[in-house]
């Protein structure tokens, strides 16, 4: 077994209100966007992650299942979990760039129309939750 | 499980085996020495007294002082011999249960795969076997030593506990007693103290109240005569007959000639008008003859020694079984 340095080093912040598995998903996403992770890279195995940081293995399983659901990664039996070379994933990442730009523009619009920062944050939280409430 | 129990009691067993070996060696050495002293004292020229000639009497008196002086040490040794098995059993018992509960290691033991009953059973099996194996050789040495050192007749209370095998039953009982007490008191120190008191109370009650009544007693009459000074006698009044010298004597007194059976102490010591006249010992042969009374001794013969040992041993074993049974019931509901 070759000892490679892990492709990504996860960090958990138990003080944030975000569920641990979502923190891992976010870290993978950010690594993809910044180029730290590329298609075909292998994500650390559950056992490796558990050895590196004190984390519940279920959390890692959950995060990797979520990444599969989002099309960002895929599990190959006996080999591990790998970043996919899936076009839709690549599309989503480039898609996100334009989504981010749009969101920024809309927020500036809302601010200029007189909405307070709290009102905008609330709207974002509301919209986010309304779509993400039903979860499997 | 046997290995674990052994490992837990290992240092106690080693300490007591070492003590036992040292004590047994001491018994063997002093016993042999005393046996030779007694042989000299009982043989010519002393024959248990001062000897015949003046020269002999000096030597024989010296010998007598030596053998009787050693009785004090013998008394201590008898007590040590008596206490060894009970203390061994008590300490093993307190260590087996009370100490585990006090240190809470029972919470470790009772959450392993075996049941609590199995845990307790392996403690019983291992420790009882240990007690028997360690105490049996000591019993053998002590029995021999009691005879060699002339501690006294083996059936009398002083020598009885150490002259046979009943010590093993004391040891086993004390172990089981300490286990049962430990289950209730749950502290090692207190369990030991309470168990010691309970055993002491039980032992002395049994020895004084029950053991004398385990077998029927025998009666023998004494003849007294005031015939002249006989060789070796230290007084002018000579009593013959009576029970054998190795018997366990209880009491003596006057009863009418021809009475059958074993009279009680109260009956024998009941004052009769005739006895008043016989208080003066020198008139005793006259009283006996004219009033048709006889002086008797009530005793238990040495031949009943093993019957008494068996009876007492069975008592303690029976109690042990009862306590052990109760402990199996108690352990299922015991607080961890």
């Amino acid at each position, binding site marked *: 077994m070759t000892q490679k340095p892990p492709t990504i080093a996860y960090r958990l912040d138990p*003080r944030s209100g975000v569920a*641990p598995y979502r923190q891992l998903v976010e870290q993978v996403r950010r690594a993809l966007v910044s180029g730290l992770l590329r298609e075909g890279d292998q994500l650390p195995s559950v056992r490796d992650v558990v050895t590196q940081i004190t984390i519940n293995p279920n959390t890692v399983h959950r995060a990797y299942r979520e990444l599969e659901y989002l099309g960002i990664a895929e599990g190959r039996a006996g080999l591990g979990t790998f970043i996919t070379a899936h076009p839709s994933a690549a599309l989503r990442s480039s898609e996100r760039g334009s989504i981010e730009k749009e969101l920024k523009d809309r927020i500036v619009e809302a601010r200029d129309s007189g909405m307070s920062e709290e009102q905008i944050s609330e709207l974002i939280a509301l919209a986010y939750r309304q779509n993400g409430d039903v979860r499997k | 499980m046997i*290995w674990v129990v052994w490992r*837990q009691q290992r240092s106690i067993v080693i300490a007591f085996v070492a003590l036992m070996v040292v004590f047994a060696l001491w018994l063997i050495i002093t016993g042999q020495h005393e046996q030779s002293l007694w042989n000299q004292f009982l043989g010519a020229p002393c024959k248990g007294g001062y000897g015949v000639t003046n020269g002999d009497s000096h030597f024989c008196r010296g010998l007598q002082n030596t053998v009787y002086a050693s009785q004090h040490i013998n008394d201590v040794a008898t007590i040590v011999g008596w206490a060894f098995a009970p203390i061994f059993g008590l300490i093993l018992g307190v260590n087996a249960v009370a100490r585990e509960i006090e240190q809470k290691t029972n*919470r470790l033991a009772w*959450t*392993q*795969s075996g049941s609590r009953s199995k845990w307790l059973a392996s403690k019983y099996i291992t420790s009882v076997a240990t007690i028997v194996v360690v105490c049996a050789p000591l019993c053998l040495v002590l029995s021999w030593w009691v005879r060699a050192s002339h501690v006294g007749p083996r059936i009398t209370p002083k020598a009885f506990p150490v002259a046979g095998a009943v010590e093993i039953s004391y040891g086993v009982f004390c172990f089981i007693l300490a286990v049962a007490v430990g289950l209730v008191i749950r502290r090692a120190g207190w369990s030991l103290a309470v168990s010691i008191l309970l055993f002491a109370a039980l032992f002395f009650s049994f020895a004084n109240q029950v053991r004398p009544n385990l077998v029927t007693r025998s009666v023998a009459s004494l003849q007294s005569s005031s015939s002249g000074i006989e060789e070796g006698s230290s007084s002018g009044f000579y009593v013959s007959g009576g029970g054998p010298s190795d018997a366990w004597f209880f009491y003596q007194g006057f009863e009418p000639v021809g009475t059958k059976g074993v009279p009680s102490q109260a009956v024998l010591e009941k004052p009769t008008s005739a006895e008043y006249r016989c208080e003066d010992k020198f008139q005793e042969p006259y009283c006996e003859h004219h009033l048709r009374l006889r002086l008797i001794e009530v005793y238990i013969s040495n031949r009943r020694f093993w019957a008494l040992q068996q009876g007492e041993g069975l008592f303690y074993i029976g109690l042990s079984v009862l306590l052990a049974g109760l402990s199996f019931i108690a352990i299922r509901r015991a607080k961890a």
Partner: protein
Amino acid sequence: MIDGTDVLETVNLGKRYRRTWGLQDCSLTIPKGRVAALVGPNGAGKSTLLRMAAGLDHPSVGTLRVLGESPNSGNGNLKTRVGYLDQERPIYKSFRVAEMLRFGENNNPNWNMRVAEEHLAQLEIPLRSRINNLSGGQQAQVALTLCLAKEPELLLLDEPAAALDPVAREDLLRILMRQVADCESSVVLSTHALGDVAAICDYVIVLAHSRVVLSNDTEYVLESHRILSAVHDGNLLPPPGVSIINNQSSARGQSILVRVELPIDDAQWHVERPSLEEIVLAYLRSGSPGARDRRSPDDDGSGE
């Protein structure tokens, strides 16, 4: 209500010690495969619950099922499948480490000596040392190894990380997580301070005053609680669809930690997501039975 895959299930469980109740009205269900944190102050009933689950104590009222069986039925099979670590971490101090392992081997049919030796080798605890020559953290590790090496389906650990320095605590929790990863064991561990346990637990149970006040998946708990702070001064009424868990108002302004049923649509409130520790603390302070034994939305409802 009885799910065959629950590792622990209690219904109105209670334990009485002479005049006080160590635990009462305890009804909870812990599904399989979780690392559950049992949180509460000292005397709240955590040890009582764990001891009963381990078969060391008998319930006074109510029922208790561990891996589907009653711990007091005298069924020796259950004890082979459950590993229990007492708060006192009892161990035979005069034994050597190797002898403790032999103890474990003698007493457990599915003992895995290789796992035990590997753990201790990794922690650099020599097998020849006497237990009472080891540090507190090392002794705790040996005690934990005794539980882990029998590869149980369920681990019941009573304050396993208490009184350990941070490094020892980290080592212990990490070894525990590795066991969960390798054997898929379920874990119920109790603690009086959530601390680093918050990072590893995916099920949380809060006990206060000998009662269960919260018992659910961590994820659901995090999703269903918010801290609302008033945007402006003044006493506001909380928006509809929320249950107040704890009022954390101060002179600086109104602040409440709530459980939410509906999304909050009130612009007068600033909404934040509390951390798990803040939620647990709020429940401990209030002692109110909030989200007691409610399932998360994606499970089949079995609410009370």
